[in-house]
């Protein structure tokens, strides 16, 4: 029992989340107001979707820095298509397709000549956002129909996150792709030797990450009633923070989509709590930074405990 608890990588994050949520629900009426819970759910839904995709990539031992740029690029395509007269569901599907393609390009560059993922996705972080800036002429796409804007409102982003995280959690445990994904990150040469097509697994992981970023982008553009090239600028760092806080090992092989989802909720809820408590925004980084250090320390404790066995 104790061993099982110690091996649950998500445990510290879950404890922190439950404690924070309980404390806020009991002590802060402004936190539990429907309007506030809705924006917390929306922010966490969007961040969480990106964190789920990021987790798949990090499980393979890679990293995807381009998620926020892929988000903006896809959201702008969706906005441009809608304003050109395309029905919004068709525009949304095209945008998700673009996210998939963007992720696949990352995966292809990473597997071809085995380029370092951090370098490839740093380049595409700049390229995707740059292309979006140039092609849109920095203009906003903000004449969007109410039916589309509704998907970013209320509890829909949170629902999307719950569905995606559940499907991925079950999928990683039960499908061949899921086992190969974890195996590629745990020990790549062993995975190769046991006949796993590592390059194809990697490409699919990056493609899924791009696709989930695009989905988050659709929701964000809908919530804001505006798709613009600056959307989610800099969010990739929050995404990686969520994944790390959720107990996913940054070098790959260990961790879960569930953990990353909890990590995203922690980041958003803590920020909201600080805001509602009247803490100036410049201090938020201290808290998120502190939580990341705590997550890193608990990871260290866990691995030394595992070595001792």
């Amino acid at each position, binding site marked *: 029992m104790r061993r099982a608890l110690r091996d649950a990588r998500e445990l510290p994050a879950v404890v922190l989340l439950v404690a924070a949520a309980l404390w806020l629900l009991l002590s802060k009426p402004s936190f539990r107001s429907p*309007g506030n819970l809705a*924006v917390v759910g929306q922010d966490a839904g969007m961040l969480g979707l990106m964190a789920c995709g990021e987790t798949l990539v990090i499980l393979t031992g890679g990293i995807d820095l381009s998620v926020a740029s892929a988000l903006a690029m896809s959201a702008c395509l969706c906005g441009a298509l809608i304003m050109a007269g395309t029905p919004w569901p068709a525009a949304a599907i095209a945008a998700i397709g673009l996210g998939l393609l963007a992720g696949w390009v990352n995966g*292809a560059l990473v597997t071809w000549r085995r380029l370092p993922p951090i370098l490839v996705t740093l380049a595409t972080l700049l390229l995707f956002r740059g292309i979006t800036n140039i092609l849109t002429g920095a203009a*906003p796409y*903000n004449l969007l129909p109410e039916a589309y804007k509704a998907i970013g409102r209320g509890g829909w982003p949170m629902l999307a996150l719950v569905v995606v995280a559940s499907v991925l959690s079950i999928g990683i445990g039960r499908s061949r792709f899921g086992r190969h994904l974890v195996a590629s990150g745990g020990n790549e040469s062993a995975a190769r030797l046991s006949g796993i097509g590592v390059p194809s697994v990697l490409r699919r992981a990056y493609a899924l990450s791009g696709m989930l970023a695009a989905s988050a982008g659709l929701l964000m553009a809908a*919530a804001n009633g505006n798709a613009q*090239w*600056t959307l989610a600028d800099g969010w990739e760092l929050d995404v990686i923070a969520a994944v790390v806080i959720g107990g996913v090992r940054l070098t790959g092989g260990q961790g879960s989509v569930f953990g990353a989802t909890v990590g995203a909720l922690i980041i958003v809820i803590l920020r909201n709590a600080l*805001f509602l408590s*009247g803490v100036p925004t410049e201090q938020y980084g201290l808290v998120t930074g502190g939580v990341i250090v705590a997550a890193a320390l608990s990871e260290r404790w866990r691995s030394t405990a595992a070595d001792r066995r």
Partner: protein
Amino acid sequence: MIHYFRLIALSIAVMTMTLLIASCAQEQPGDKTRRIAFVFKVDGLLYSEVCKQGAEQAAKDLGIRVDYLAPDKAEVGKQIAIIEQLIAEKADAIIVSPNDADAIVPVIAKAMDAGIKVFTWDSDAPKSQRIFYVAAADDVQIGVDIADALAKQINGKGKVQIVSGGRGAANLNLHVTGMEKAFAKYRGITLVKPYIYNDDDNQKARSMAVAALQKDPDIVGFACANSPSAPAVGEAITSLKKIGKIGVWGLALPSETRSYLKSGAVSGLMLWDPAKLTAFTARAVNDYLDGKQPTDGAEVEGVGKITYKNGVLLIPGATITKNNVDQFDF
């Protein structure tokens, strides 16, 4: 698989080449034409694109060559490099919106020494040798105007939340200073602390506005200093079904705010037309090169009454509400 990859690599290469060729292929008129060059802070902002349209219009109207240049990052070093290049090419006049008011001083002196007339627009470098600075109202005054309009709407009483972008942005801080100065005149108005700084991020701007209304449900007005905030606060108010109960004034582009002005979620904007400002600047500089100084109090067609004091040339700003927003196509 390799074939697909080559195809993608090839298309990326072709796209890059096309962009490079397109950017080099600007026409080069004959040497005799007068040449003035705008150097903006950074490429790729909608604001900058609109300024550029004004510069292009001025080139047509004045029959001179007007270049519009901007670095890819908002760094003064890159602007200095552009100005050095313009000195080498012997442009007739340079008009710069400096990223750093002090660091730009030496290169302005160098250009003036080389016989090139230097001006500033949009942002000033007051310690430099620039001949004059052209702007629309001034940064503090815009803040005062926003605050006064909001105070009038809420009858001078209630809680007001000031919203800005980054804490380090000099022009935004001047807007905030103007707001504080103006709100201080109204005894009934209290400012909610701390102010919201949303890093110019649409999503953060919206969710922070919603959270602000949970933290202080009795907020009656938002005064927005940065351009993403007014539409984002408008969206927040729309989703909370509080249209008409809360006043929202700010500084934003009409294209980003039009639907919220029309629905009443945003009350109004204080701003200027960047294209008009830039075109007017080109005209004033062209006149100066012809030996004509600007005149304080002159009525300029299509611009309004200008003021010219101590090397600062101001054109009037505009109040934009749902009644006139359709006249502004930027």
